[in-house]
């Protein structure tokens, strides 16, 4: 028998006191089915709070449609702010898994947080529906039976753009992205189809994340002789880069193309007319004409006072759709996790982005289409107008050994 230490004594005493305090309520609640607890690890403060907000709103739209119950269980969302900081995100993940004992975990936005929480999720056999972070590794050597991704891998919006740009814009391209993993992943994915299509990389540059003055890079682009630029930036970086690109008079001479985040609705209003004519690849734009999307846009704008949904809202919508459909199919049983992962892996439904299904090899979404979009002035302001599309884009999943 171990000795009583101060810590174990305190722990036991606290647990006893807590169960005494909540006892009557838990007993009463268990007369009905226990609530379905869904944990959200997302940024709710800082520049990326608008992304967390969009994802959460997309989820709320689905849950409200279901009357906040699924298979007789009340839906309970537990939101945790990860502040876009990996240590914070990992701590919040541990809290949601160990103390809140969530049935299903969702999030995060930051790839670093996803990589940090991966082992905790995998070892505790918690089902995680990734609602944004695109780190390629999660569909490759670090894939997990318990992790599904509804959003994208960084590779997906960029790889098809390489061939498209070489064919339709120019074969002489300057690449630029922030100096971190996602930036390098995306530039590499672009080259995979750009170089075989006869494209030539004139030069590449990796400014620091959070750069405010892109002038030195823009002067280099101008002098490089490139005919087009392929860029990935998001948040304030996207606003500063696109605005300054226009101010330097480059827009008329050197076509600006990029990954979809460059001109998503979270940054487009601040970019204004500077963004006109920018061409990006993404799995979604609110202007898609399928009926699911038209209903989604209408209901989203009605519920959230006229706000235009973006790719992030679509990711939240699909996250919630996956949860609702899976829990229904399991008749509310979330304890049999092996069964639940089988159900999730086999789900197919109509999403605003098109026909949704997971790749059984990686648990990553197969993008029904990557849309090539151009920023144009349409009714209701600037928007990403689809001008072309590439079908069935699935991550190669190199190194992932999930049972097929």
């Amino acid at each position, binding site marked *: 028998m171990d000795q009583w230490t101060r810590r174990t004594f305190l722990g036991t005493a606290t647990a006893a006191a807590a169960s005494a305090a909540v006892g009557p309520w838990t007993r009463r609640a268990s007369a009905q089915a226990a609530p379905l607890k869904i944990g959200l690890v997302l940024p709710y*403060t*800082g*520049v990326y*709070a*608008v992304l967390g907000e969009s994802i959460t709103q997309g989820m709320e739209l689905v849950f409200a449609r279901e009357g906040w119950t699924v298979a007789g269980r009340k839906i309970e969302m537990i939101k945790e702010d990860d502040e876009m900081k990996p240590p914070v995100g990992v701590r919040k993940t541990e809290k949601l898994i160990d103390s809140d004992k969530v049935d299903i975990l969702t999030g995060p936005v930051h790839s670093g947080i996803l990589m940090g929480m991966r082992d905790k999720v995998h070892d505790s056999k918690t089902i995680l529906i990734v609602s944004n972070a695109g780190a390629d590794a999660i569909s490759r050597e670090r894939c997990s039976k318990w992790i599904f991704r509804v959003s994208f891998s960084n590779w997906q919006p960029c790889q098809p753009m390489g061939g498209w740009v070489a064919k339709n814009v120019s074969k002489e391209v300057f690449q630029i992205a922030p*100096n971190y993993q996602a930036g390098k992943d995306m530039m590499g994915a672009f080259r995979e189809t750009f170089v075989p299509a006869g494209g030539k990389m004139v030069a590449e*540059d*990796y*400014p*620091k994340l*959070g750069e*405010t*003055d892109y*002038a*030195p*890079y823009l*002067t*280099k682009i*101008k*002098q490089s002789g490139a005919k087009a630029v392929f860029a990935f930036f998001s*948040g*304030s970086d996207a*606003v*500063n880069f696109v*605005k*300054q690109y226009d*101010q*330097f*008079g*480059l827009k008329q001479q050197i076509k600006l193309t990029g990954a979809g985040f460059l001109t998503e609705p*979270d*940054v487009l*209003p*601040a*970019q*204004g007319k500077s963004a006109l004519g920018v061409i990006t690849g993404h799995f979604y734009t609110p202007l898609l004409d399928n009926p699911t999307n038209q209903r989604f846009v209408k209901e989203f704008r009605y519920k959230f006072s006229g706000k235009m949904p973006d790719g992030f809202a679509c990711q939240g919508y699909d996250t919630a759709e996956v949860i609702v459909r899976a829990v229904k199919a399991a008749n509310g049983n979330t304890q049999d996790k092996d069964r639940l992962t089988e159900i999730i892996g086999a789900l197919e439904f109509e999403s605003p982005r098109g026909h949704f299904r997971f790749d059984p090899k990686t648990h990553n979404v197969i993008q029904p289409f990557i849309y090539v979009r151009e920023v144009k002035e349409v009714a209701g302001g600037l928007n990403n107008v689809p001008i072309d599309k590439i079908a069935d884009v699935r991550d190669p999943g190199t190194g992932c050994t999930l049972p097929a």
Partner: protein
Amino acid sequence: MPFFPDIFGQALNGLSYGVLLFLLSVGLTLIFGMLDVVNLAHGSFYMLGAYAGLSLIAATGSFWLALALAPLAVGVVGAVVERTCLRPLYRRSPLDQVLLTFGFIYLFEDLVKWIWGGRIRSIPSPDLFSGSVTVFGATVPSYRLFVIAFGLAMAVALWLVIERTRLGAIVRAGVFDAEMTAGMGINIDRVFTWVFAGGAALAGLSGVIAGPIQSAYPPMGASILIPALIVVVVGGLGSLKGSLAGSLIIGQAETFGKAWLPGASMVIIYVVMALVLLLRPQGLFGRPLR
């Protein structure tokens, strides 16, 4: 290989960035020199300037009116902060003052989110300077040329005020020895308030000036604080000349670093600072350390 239009273009880029740093750091260095306060909330005044500018442009439709009025508004905020919060701490340890101004970073950030929301916003360039021009083969946005001219004019104006007016003489005396200045019958308390408000107004001014180049978002103040502090260290505490020289050096170092040594660009301004600290610990134009 770099050739002339490239070098010239990058030098102009560095100059416009340096001038922006000057407008920001000159207030910081004067406040430090005179009040002995490291004002960590200086970046917040920069952010307040940008947001006040946004609202004033929306209300008046004129960039120029916003450029004139936003600094005044930020200056008033600065005066209130100095009178109500900072003054009681002058006799306490510098750590208390650092803690207070650090707290103000969060306070102002939340205030901005509360009033203007967390979305990224931006100030459009004034119509007069919305295009770009080609100078000696280098393309530069005309707004950046305006920023350079405006910043250098401000430097001359500030120099005239500090070197040629009675107020300037008092400020210089205060930087040298505040107690002795008070002993000469100068109401040093009031001068402190003016200097702090003036420094805040200059930060607000640079916030509006930076608006069309950069975007406005709540943590913008915290991210610009580091280069501004480096300028103060390089130039020497409390020195106008040092602030100008430091800004221009850091502006060029950072710009050419990004252009020619992209791998090392993140550390290059720290290398410059370390070199200055090694060879001239008091900064380029600072007083020798006692």
